[in-house]
């Protein structure tokens, strides 16, 4: 079975009780957990119930399912009912749906998507603000601002408040505090208590959710736990249903999740995680100490997986160096425990899967003069790489979503195929967008602009494959020009003259001759009938219109599923709010964050993400968790995103607020801790929050480094030197640059001198 140290013990020895698997990155957690499940099922050791595996994302769910199913199939065992893989929210949904009446919910309750959640929260804030305009303003540092910038600051504050309150509500919910209870607890706090404000808004938000028949994701966890606590027979049923409970990525667990799984587990609980990869704490209520504490329980058997064949020895050395640096020399001593002394070991020579070897030293680092320069250099470098190594998978990691957009724009300009892992990426939203484009035009068919946009996005592909199936960059470029020409033409016309000319035929004299000769025009002419068919469809029943579009555009399996989902939801939406219009619907569909993201992603992830050579993956550091590529670019390693010292600039601090409120999230957290009588010693809350951020960002960088199998590029920038808004490269980048240039980390047996000047 090819099992390594730690993996073997799990698969061969774990048969019950508490067990913790501490694994290093690339340790093959999914692999060995799947094998363990298969082994148990093969031997019937999971009876009388099933094995439950809870993991963090739908893609991981599918990954587990596929691995287990294929291994069972190999062994000739039909047992798809013997295991159940789910996200924690999927599991909670199941539990609540068993008895929604216990928590006074209608059985048709819906889980609110992020977009609607923000809408509801904003309107709750508005409602609160109407009665509390002065309290709202009191936090802004008016003395520092001109009248002009003051208005802007209020605006900014309102937009930031949404995130702050959301964090507070999450904290309340994580402690099981209901809105009225929260208000009661905060009664004694002063008018300028952020926590008190949060409690007020929590009450409004909760009321709005309830009358809308909604739960948010935090409610799901909280209510699932409540249902299990209230109903012992149900809990008993779940305990019987699942003989074993396994939690993947246990370092990102939170209190309620841990409690739910422990309750269900009935003693057989297997948790797999890596504390050094805990990167969700600052925006969820997760905390890796739950996993750590679990491993330290006397009754827990712990197996450690320390070997990995994912990365080259060079990269392993760099990762281990980084751990050591943080632990021994981090400039903020309080952050030295942020990474545990778990060092990655390369596999032995007898292992069937060996660590990759590169002909040259595969790590480079550089500081650029600006983000733009950095981005351009990264794209140049990866184009170069793709040409030289067509079989390599490549990823570029960035700290923020807007930078993804920027990079993708650059790559598209240069014809570099890329894909995003973001839920809201273009690729994943393609189906929703296309329907949106068509409905947008359908709502306003006299608009040449909308016709042009629709035709371009839905009817004329960017790069049709030529006879040989090869994409020729030159053809792509000229096609792009022709498409632009068509778009320019369509934007200026009265659409009825093209679609329904009074004489019956299009007056070709009015079409630019140049355009008439192109392939693009011919394709456009061919598609006119389809466009007219769609336009002619009665618009009164929108769900049918959507299904009709799906049919006319010959959607594939996944696209049809999405179209059907949109169609059902639209019917429901229209009955909830009769004032919905086609244009409004189109707007929703065209926005990258829309209410169909969740479902589109479920469908998308069924296919599973598999890095493909020739297509560059662009994603955030966070989204890269659990994945690996041959080549990885870690970009934007700057102070703002990877702070090292307490003096660094921190995200989450708002310059327009009075000094004492600059970090509202931290203040709320500490106010709540105080209120709950939790031990917070005497640490300044802002300081505590900074320490937490520094620690987590160190782990985030560690995750990034360990994604790379063969080549790793680290970069940042130093812009606006000497100015107030100067942006400095992160101290980590500088430290690692020193390390690389000193040649310390090169795997023994290779000669640095010989490796210089290689392809990288």
């Amino acid at each position, binding site marked *: 079975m090819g099992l390594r140290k730690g993996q073997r013990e799990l698969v061969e020895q774990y048969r019950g009780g508490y067990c913790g698997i501490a694994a290093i990155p690339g340790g093959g957690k999914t692999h060995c957990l799947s094998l363990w499940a298969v082994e148990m099922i093969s031997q019937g050791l999971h009876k009388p119930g099933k094995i439950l595996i809870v993991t963090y994302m739908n893609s991981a769910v599918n990954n587990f399912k596929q691995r287990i199913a294929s291994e069972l199939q190999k062994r000739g065992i039909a047992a798809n009912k013997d295991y159940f893989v789910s996200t924690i929210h999927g599991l909670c949904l*199941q539990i609540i749906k068993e008895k929604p009446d216990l928590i*006074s*919910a209608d059985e048709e*309750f819906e889980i609110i998507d992020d977009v609607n959640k923000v809408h509801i929260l904003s309107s709750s804030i508005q409602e609160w603000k109407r009665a509390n305009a002065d309290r709202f303003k009191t936090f802004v540092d008016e003395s520092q601002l001109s009248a002009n910038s003051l208005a802007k600051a209020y605006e900014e504050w309102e937009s930031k408040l949404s995130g702050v309150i959301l964090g507070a509500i999450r904290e309340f919910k994580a402690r099981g505090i209901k809105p009225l209870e929260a208000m009661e607890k905060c009664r004694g706090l002063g008018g300028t208590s952020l926590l008190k404000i949060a409690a007020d808004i929590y009450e409004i938000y909760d009321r709005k959710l309830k009358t809308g*028949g909604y739960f948010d994701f935090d409610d799901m966890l909280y209510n699932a736990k409540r249902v299990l606590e209230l109903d012992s027979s149900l809990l008993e049923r779940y305990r019987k249903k699942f003989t074993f409970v396994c939690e993947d990525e246990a370092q990102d667990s939170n209190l309620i999740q841990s409690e739910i799984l422990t309750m269900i587990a009935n003693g057989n609980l297997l948790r797999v995680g890596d504390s050094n990869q805990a990167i969700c704490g600052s925006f969820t209520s997760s905390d890796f100490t739950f996993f750590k504490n679990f491993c330290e329980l006397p009754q827990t058997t712990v197996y450690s997986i320390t070997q990995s064949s994912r990365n080259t020895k060079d990269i392993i050395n760099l990762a281990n160096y980084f751990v050591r640096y943080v632990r021994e020399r981090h400039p903020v001593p309080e952050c030295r425990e942020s990474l545990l002394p778990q060092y990655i070991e390369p596999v032995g020579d007898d292992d069937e899967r060996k660590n990759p070897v590169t002909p040259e030293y595969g790590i480079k680092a550089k500081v650029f003069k600006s983000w733009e320069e950095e981005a351009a250099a990264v794209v140049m470098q990866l184009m170069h790489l793709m040409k030289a190594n067509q079989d390599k998978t490549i990823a570029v990691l960035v700290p923020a979503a807007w930078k993804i957009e920027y990079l993708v724009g650059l790559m598209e300009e240069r014809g570099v195929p890329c894909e995003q892992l973001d839920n809201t990426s273009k690729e994943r939203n393609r189906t929703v967008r296309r329907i949106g484009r068509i409905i947008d035009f359908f709502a306003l068919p006299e608009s040449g602009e909308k016709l042009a946009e629709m035709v371009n996005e839905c009817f004329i592909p960017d790069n049709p494959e030529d006879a040989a199936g090869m994409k020729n960059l030159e053809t792509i470029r000229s096609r792009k020009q022709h498409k632009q020409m068509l778009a320019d033409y369509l934007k200026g016309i009265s659409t009825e003259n093209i679609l329904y000319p009074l004489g019956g035929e299009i007056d070709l004299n009015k079409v630019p001759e140049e355009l008439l000769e192109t392939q693009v025009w011919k394709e456009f002419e061919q598609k006119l009938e389809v466009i007219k068919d769609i336009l002619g469809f009665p618009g*009164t029943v929108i769900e049918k219109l959507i299904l009709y579009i799906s049919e006319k555009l010959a959607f594939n399996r996944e696209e049809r599923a999405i179209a*059907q*989902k949109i169609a059902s939801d639209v019917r429901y939406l229209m009955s909830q709010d009769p004032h919905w219009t086609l*244009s409004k619907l189109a707007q929703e569909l065209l926005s990258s964050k829309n209410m169909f993201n969740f479902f589109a992603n479920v469908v998308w992830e069924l296919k599973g993400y598999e890095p493909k050579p020739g297509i560059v993956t662009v994603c955030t550091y966070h989204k890269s968790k659990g994945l690996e590529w041959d080549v990885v670019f870690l970009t934007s390693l700057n102070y703002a995103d990877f702070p090292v010292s307490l003096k660094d600039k921190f995200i989450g601090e708002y310059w327009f607020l009075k000094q004492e409120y600059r970090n509202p999230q931290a203040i709320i957290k500490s106010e709540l801790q105080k209120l709950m009588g939790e031990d917070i010693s005497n640490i300044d809350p802002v300081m505590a929050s900074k320490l937490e951020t520094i620690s987590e960002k160190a782990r985030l960088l560690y995750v990034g480094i360990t994604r790379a199998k063969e080549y790793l590029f680290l970069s940042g920038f130093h812009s606006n030197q000497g100015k107030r808004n100067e942006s400095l490269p992160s101290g980590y980048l500088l430290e690692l640059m020193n390390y690389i240039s000193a040649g310390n980390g090169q795997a023994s047996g290779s000669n640095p001198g010989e490796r210089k000047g290689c392809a990288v």
Partner: protein
Amino acid sequence: MYGLDEKAKKIVEMPNADRKIILKGPTGCGKSTLLLERYRFMVESLKIPSDRILILLLNRTQSLDWRKKTVLKSSGAVWRTSYYGFIQSEIRTYYPIVLENCSEIVNKQIKPTFLTFESAQFLVSKVIDKHRERRGLFAGVTSFTDRIAIDLTANLVKAATSDIPCHEIGERLYSALELKDETKRQVFRDADGILSAYRKKCLELGIFDFGMAVEVYNRYLFTDERYREHLFRRVQHVFADNIEECVPTEVDFIYSLLPNVKSCMLGYNFEGGYGEAFGGNHEYMKQKLINGCETIEMGKSYTCSSFMSEFSEMLFDSIENGKRGRVSEGANIEKTPPYELRSEMLEAAAERVCALISSNGYKPSDIAILSTHADPVSEYVIEKILQRQGIKLKNLSRKSRVVDNPFTQALITLAQLCHPDYGEHPNRDDVKALIRLLLKIDPVRSSLLAGEVCSRKPFAEFPDVEFPGLVERIGYHNVEKYEKIRDWIKLYKAQAVPLPINEFFQKVFLEILISKDVDVLDSDILQAKNLIDSARTFADVVSRFNMNASREFLAMVRRGIKSAESIFEIEERLGGDFVLLSTPVAYLASSLSNKVIILTSLSSRNWTPRSVKELSNAHVLTKTWEKGDIYTEEMEERNQKRYLALLTRALLKRCGEKLITFESNLSANGYENDGDLSEYFDSILT
């Protein structure tokens, strides 16, 4: 019709004796046919006047079946009705007695009015809406107001048909809860408060919903000696079918008729009882009626093969009693492995239907597709695939909304344009659709005109179109047509007083929509007629509540109320060569059976709906429930299993040859399906 055997013939041709008979048998044994034949014999051969025979039926589909089959040689009126229909007509006829006995009705000048379910829900939700936002009613309940209104009105019906006083509903439900807390107690108090206010107001005005009508009938009419004397004189014979699904007060009603009628014949399907969610109470019926009548057992089922009958019993046993029989999957039963997505599953089911017809020689009408969620989207997806092979599909479940029909939508849009004061302004999409329909012009030009209409301030209205550019784009001929409509609207708006909404629709219908310029299908005319009827009933009720009925009707229609249905439409769905799509419950309510039954979403949890809901519990609001008892989870589990067992057995008994099941791992919302039915199938299939 099934040929009657000797035993059955004897029953049909009994001389006119004073016999009270229950025909007891399983699904498909020919009880209903026998009832019908006996009725025919009594009228035609025994010459019993048909207006002395009361026929009580379950629903409209049954009624239709009887209507078709009771074409009698004699010309007397056939007294065929549902329980609710009967009560309504009795209250209407004997209203003076009701008024005399019931002091709660204040307005005695007007005729009684009966609410449809939708109007009742509308009125209740109006009350809830007001209080929920302002007074924080139903705090802690995660549900929409409309949903709460549905639950509350349904509770009222269940209580009335089980003879439970309205003011006891909340207390009864609360005290049956296993887990009580103050929030929940308050929620039920809120519910009681809303209901009693609603009930009081309705009664004052002489308006009755189903529940109130039952209550008024039982308390103020049926207890009146004068009335009873009349009733017993009129009813000399009783026929009733599916007595196992009767609500308790109907059972009581039949029970009190028994000593007073000459004969009765009641159809009893002992395998039934899945209608508890709708208030039926099989247990109560058994207690009350079985001993008072002589029972004739009927044997074998004609609607399903012996194999299917055996399989259905085995499945029943497996679900209800945990017994494990084994049957091999084969020609009669096909369990298709799960698909990942629900959409895939629907498509595969449709493809399978095509193959059954093209390769296995089945006719479309041999096949029924049953889905717990037979929504318009599923319907469309399946329909499109069948269409490619020229096969038609009909959806038995009533799901279409008033606004789904372009023709009725046009009526509504015109109403909005003509009554800007009502505050329900049409949007551009609606105006565009209206213009397209009336002017018969292309979508682009319709949209251009709609833009002009909607850009008027403060309300949308048809302006003069005189800019040369625009006229040219629209075309002169089209502009002429446009002006006709514009003038019509102008003329209407010039009237001092607007017409009531139903009269307005009538006017538009006659003066505009059925003119030669507009394409009208027969089905459109029917829809328009339904709309006018609904508007009339609605206006009649709502105007008494000091609300502007016309405005409220327009608002309600936009919220997607379902369209009313005439008996013709139901009839159309029941006959013809098409594949049927239905929910299991709607299917069972019909008297249909099919050679092939396809069950979809087998692993969905919708097959076992929970009877305890946040505001209701069908088992507690019933006559057989002991006040003060606790409704435990074990009871719920047992009831769910029983329901599933009864439901699937009844369905399978309607399946003549072949059962095919489909399922998907993910639900329509993208979450894992984890219902039990699929596993029950697995446990007996090898």
